């Protein structure tokens, strides 16, 4: 039995303010397209069934599981990955955003694998609720799995990020 090659689609992805033209089959997951076609490997894949949240990205500012989206369905969307969270301070690296800085301050990460999904989730969460209570902070991250930290320091990071965010205003 022979098969013909899969049909490929030209897809234009808008990621972190840049345009990525990729040619992918219809079934290609957005997570794979970001990682393997755009080379943005900061988005991690932990379960590929939408439970762990490691692959969370922002689609038009809303947190979405990129493993549950197809690349072809992300055309026209403004995508932000972890690589796009840093803030421009004139240096090539950029400055850590309040959420990123808070994770460093509070030891909110260990192996770093789930971290990108937490950072994007919290970035969106704080945009919606810039001054969360501890319970609200917990609620904000209740859909993401971490196996290293036990979450206590991630909750602290959310509150610290809110504090840092206020300082900037």
């Amino acid at each position, binding site marked *: 039995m022979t098969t013909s090659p899969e049909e490929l689609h030209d897809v234009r992805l808008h990621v972190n303010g840049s345009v990525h033209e990729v040619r992918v089959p219809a079934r290609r997951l957005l997570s794979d397209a970001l990682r393997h076609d755009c080379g943005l490997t900061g988005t991690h894949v932990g379960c590929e069934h939408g439970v762990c949240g490691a692959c969370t990205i922002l689609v038009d500012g809303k947190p979405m599981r990129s493993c549950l989206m197809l690349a072809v369905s992300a055309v026209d969307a403004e995508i932000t990955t972890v690589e796009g969270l840093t803030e421009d301070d004139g240096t090539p690296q950029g400055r850590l955003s309040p959420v990123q800085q808070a994770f460093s301050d509070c030891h909110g990460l260990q192996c770093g694998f789930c971290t990108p999904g937490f950072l994007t989730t919290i970035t969106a969460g704080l945009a919606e609720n810039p001054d969360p209570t501890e319970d609200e902070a*917990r609620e904000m991250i209740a859909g993401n799995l971490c196996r290293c930290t036990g979450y206590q320091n991630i909750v602290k990071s959310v509150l610290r990020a809110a504090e840092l965010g206020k300082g900037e205003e």
Partner: protein
Amino acid sequence: MTTKLFGTKVPRVEDQRFLRGQGRYVDDLLTDDPRLLHAAVLRSPHAHARIVDIDVSDVLDLDGVVAVWTWEDLTGPMAEPLPLLIPHPTLTHGRTQYALAREEVNYVGEAIAFVVAVDRYVAEDAVARIRVDYEYLEPVVGIDAARAAERTVHDDVPDNVGARMEQENGDARAAIAAAPHTLTLELDIERSACTPMEGRGTVARWDPDTSRLTVWSSTQTSTGVRGCVAAKLGLDLARVDVITPDVGGGFGVKVVHPWPEELLVPLAAKTLGRPVKYTEDRREHFISSAHERAQQHHVEVGFDDEGRVLGLNVEFWHDHGAYTPYGLIVPIITSTQLLGPYKPQNYRVVFESLYTNTVIVTPYRGAGRPQGCFVMERTMDAIAAYLGKDRTEVRSTNFIQPDEFPYEHGLIFQDGRELTYDSGDYPASLAKLKELVGWDEFEEFRAEMAAQGRRVGIGLACYVEGTGVGPYEGAHVHIETSGKVKVATGLTTQGQGHQTAFAQIVADTLGVRFEDVEVTTGDTRKMPYAVGTFASRAAVMSGSAIHLAALRAKEKALRIAAEALEASEEDLEIADGVVSVKGTDASIDLGTVAVLSNPLRYAFDEASKAATQFSVGDPGKPPVAEDDEPGLEGKDFYSPPRSTFANGMHAVIVETDPDTAEIRILKYAVVHDCGHLINPMIVEGQIHGGVAQGVGGALYERMAYDESGQLLNASFMDFLMPYVTEVPTSIDIDHLETPSPLNPLGIKGAGEAGVIPSAAVFAAAIEDAEGFPITAMPISPSELFELRLAHADDTTEATTRSTP
């Protein structure tokens, strides 16, 4: 003098790359290499079957498929069973699987065929087209079935017993027979697993220009992988480099090696002349990596009126799954570490390690200790209940006292050495714990809650953990002419912050700026002699080796600087990377000392001119002295006589819902003694993470195998790993620092501690809340509800306890 960094909460250097999405995990590698190929594995859908035929004819025509391997295609050492990594004389029936199954499969998930294609999607398409004819065999699932041995996993292991091991100190059975009181307990623990967020993964590239193989693997032992790859592929060790990039968690499972894919990926890369990547998906991690924990224990204990244990006799059955690649490490640890901080006068332990048609069992954080702790602490609680004594009092009666160290148990530990505790202060730890959790005020709290119709319970559990097992680790410290310090140690990192903690040690030891120290782990090109990261050993082993290597570099720096400054070495000090003569302005940068350490013929920059032949050295002597070598480096190894024993105690207050049997954590307290802390922030992070895993193991996580050996919950939807909503909102932690006399820094391991007492401490607290014995863990609300019904039916009989 430079500020001392050892013992301070230095922020982690790793965080910068992780927070920016610039970590490099194994699946991130070579993504821009258009020649990269991807692998997928056909896995057995049956727990036990003979392979009659494998037909791959539909696969090769599939567009994008490059190659497919089955066992028939393997030759030489690759066609032999995988290595049995840790043999033991009592492992009389050790068995390991093949890289690809030969004739028989023994668990759902066992690798059968390996497909390489242009991308993972196509590789998976191809896997789906392979046709295998199986002759189905009845599987052996669970410890009861293995013990019954009506069926066997391996034809040549007639009773499913891979090993039977017995150790005894004194005469436990005689002591129990003569004891004033005796109790018998039957205790069970179910399967769970490490479940790191990143699964297994391997990338390999064969370079035909240099005839070298480079392998990147998400492993806890790069040197172990290197040895196996070289042996299996028939390559000289010098032709194989193994690099461990950033690793998304390990918790034990990644110390197993070589995984079939860890050999097949390099084989494919070398055969095809193209780089190959294999990245495990989540279901594969559940069904084809490793699990742990499942054991059944039968305990007999004899004690006096004070609760002093006079004799303890433990028989247990350990489910090791379908194969024994990691030997008997887990049950040996259970059988020895069960003793905790106590000194039963007479102790006998016997275990049988059993085959079942399920995923292999290898160390998971705690590695057999959680089971041992559960058994010992349940026994202590049972003694206290029987005598009507406070549970802390019975423990105190049995503690090894601070003046009894080193304490010899008269048993052999997992490293083949005597089980001898080096230091600790258990009474002090218990006093701290009681204070921290409010032990003495609890009855008041219970009454208060009862008045509101709420049901609460308190439990505690103590453990001792042998950490920092040998044989050794090494380190290389190189001071470059820029003054920057490059450090290499061979063990690997999975999120413990080694780059930070080890740099702290180097900065202190050498007297250089923390920012100038860069640490590399797990790269066999930089440190080919290493063992790996497991058994809470990294800080103890590599931390000590790095300290010793830095001392050697410092010694040399002082010698050269003394000559340059025309001063005596004793008058020199090093701070912030500058060697100076105490009390004077005379000084020299370490970078310049590095220049002087390497006599040059050719200058490559301004600084190096100082080391050229017309500038430096005594023309009457060889430029490099006979007993010296060029360069400002230090290399050393640390190899301890035996493990160092950390310890700790946890207490928890739980609330159980009178109607729904939901179990809530109201307070969690930890007293922890891992000797001197290098970085308290990192140690506390380790405790937090361990406690969360412990909560998972005690209340939520289990491997739900059905009778045909299918794992029913092999996804994150069904395997209930704790989210933030399941863990304690805060953990009260207090440290005791009893230094280890066995290493130069006085440190003990901390990585596994948080998870060890969880099953024990939750069982104790739930039992205290409910008033009937908890003898099996994990426990769900449904199970607690069933237990309530059973005990309501029969309130007079405590079924698991008997009196003499």
